């Protein structure tokens, strides 16, 4: 399946600068949010939002066409 991924903040440094944090990934037909994070090599604590719903757990199973946003928890600043 294909999913679109949008990485924010320092996470976007995992992609080439021209991508501006956006990419599309091919994943096996059955894959979880945890699998996606592993594919991207993200080990730090993040918040995952899918199709506008935030705080999706790592065991959640992805669907073809999902739009996934990944960002770090925010305190003040």
């Amino acid at each position: 399946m294909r999913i679109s991924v949008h990485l924010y903040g320092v996470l976007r440094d995992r992609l080439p600068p021209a991508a501006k944090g956006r990419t599309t990934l091919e994943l096996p037909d059955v894959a979880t949010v945890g699998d996606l994070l592993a594919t991207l090599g993200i080990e730090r604590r993040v918040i995952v939002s899918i199709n506008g719903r935030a705080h999706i757990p790592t065991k959640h199973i992805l669907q073809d066409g999902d739009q996934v946003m990944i960002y770090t928890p925010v305190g003040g600043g």
Partner: protein
Amino acid sequence: MPHGYHGRILHVDLTSGALSIEQPEEKFYRKYMGGSAMALTYLLRGMPPGVDPLAPENMLALFLSVVTGAPISGQSRVTVAAKSPLTGCVGDSQAGGFFPAEMKFAGFDGIVITGRAPHPVYLWLHDGQAELRDATHLWGRVTGEVQDMLRHELGDDKIEVLQTGPAGEKGVRFAALMNMCSRANGRTGMGAVMGAKNLKAIVVWGNQRPSIADAAALKALAQWGATRLPQSDIAGLSKYGTSEVIGLNNADGGLPTRNYAGGVFEYYEALDGPTLYETLLRGAAQGRQERLGRDTCYACVVRCKRVVEKRDGPYLLDPTYGGPEYESLATLGSYCGVSDLAAVCKANENCNKYGLDTISCGATIAWAMECFENGLLTKEDTDGLELRFGNAEAVVRLTEMIGRREGFGDLLAEGSARAAQRLGRGSERFLITSKNQEAPAHMPQVKRTLAIIYAANPFGADHQSHEHDPAYAPYPERMAQIGLHDPQPPLTLNAEMVRYALVTQYAYSALDSLSVCQFVYGPAWHLYSMNQLTEMVRAVTGWDVSLYEIMKVGERRLNMLRAFNAREGIGREHDTLPERFFTRPLQGGPSDGYVLDRDEWQRAMDTYYAMAGWDVQSGNPTRPTLEALGLGWVADLLGL
């Protein structure tokens, strides 16, 4: 000899010009540790209730802490406290930079200022000496000029200057105190208090570094932080500064847009940290921004401060004035519907140049924009400005007009709450204020415990007074250090989240008493944990201090803040939120439809006061609670 501090507090009576040194006992330092807690002991003891914040009787207290100036990240911060001309409540604000460490090296732990000088003066502290000098020639000048003139006059470009700008001189109610022309004691109008005292600046330099009790332990902790930083959860803060938060909050639906109408700004990428990094950061055009565009505070490896520069086209940017933080980008940007990054940086520069709190300034302009959009203000009121959301030029222009109290800027210089009162026409309904202070750019509709803290915080809506909701679940080990073990689902405001708000408020209150950076030390995503903070205080002071003791300092300070307000007749009835938080659902994005439930919030507030040991009806501290904290003297002052 104490370790970490001098045991010397300077008292300045500006009316008579008298200077004196107080040398409190060690137990005073151990009980309050510094910063805000220490400042409040002087405000409570030295000032009666009912004082006009801009009168000579108001006290202005500047405090470092027992660890300020130690060679480790995140310790160079100063608290300024006084009665606030913006809120009428206790005022309290922190800033970093090199000034705090340099003030310690000048030989002082704190300064307590009373009275009003007969003509403008500045205070010159160096190697344990203090003197007042004439500042008539500095009056009316912007911060960059004043810093240059003082460095020239004193023959040393290493001196550090904390000053009030033209805005503070003119009594702008949200005037800031600036050091390094880019670090602000921004909130609650402390610049106006200093201006009203005819005190233009405090200038410091010295070589009096207090000893460190266990230098080897401190060095090991400092090195751990430097090594850990790239893998830590503040790596993004290090690279992009707080500007990174634009994208993160927008993704969460929590980036205030057009005066809090929504939490998603369609042009957020134009303001986001990576854009700033690639375009306006000093040296970006040559790919040298890592070297030229990042700045730091004394001895800090994080280097989260930004420096912007632009030498051509509209909105030239002077690197003297640093660069914008997240709050400035949001309040002068999305809050006003503005997406022109250079304009937002220019507005930020103007705030630093005139000495204005960027949060209150941006939010006040956003309030005026909504009034204009709804026909409550016209171009006749605004000196011809077409004050619509998105008008970048108007935002830049207004920052100057407010800083000079010029034309329509004179009304906005009062802050949005007073401006609404003066304007009338139903403009109060567009206010985003608590206790007359404009809300920062973190949204209670999205992070629900902010609904408690924005309302209950004694110095008005504040985003740095507790830990935000998303940090509870991901950091179980660190949260357990302060007794928090049970994270709740997002958008929950039950008893456990009230407990989370209160306990982390004690933690953040302790950080502001130890005068340490809330990005470097804290209970969640920070570089160092609360236990490591304890290790740091032990290494610097040699005290056998515990985290329990540090948390109690935080609780003590919070109770003193509430007690100050109680004495002014300010209690629970002033712990309010903007009406529209309960009545107008957010529009668009992941937070579409989010709105606070008034009954749920009221229950949470009841629980909050009860958990804090305060009277639930009045919201005021009780004698048993104060005595349990060793604050019986405060109960006496309150007549309890």
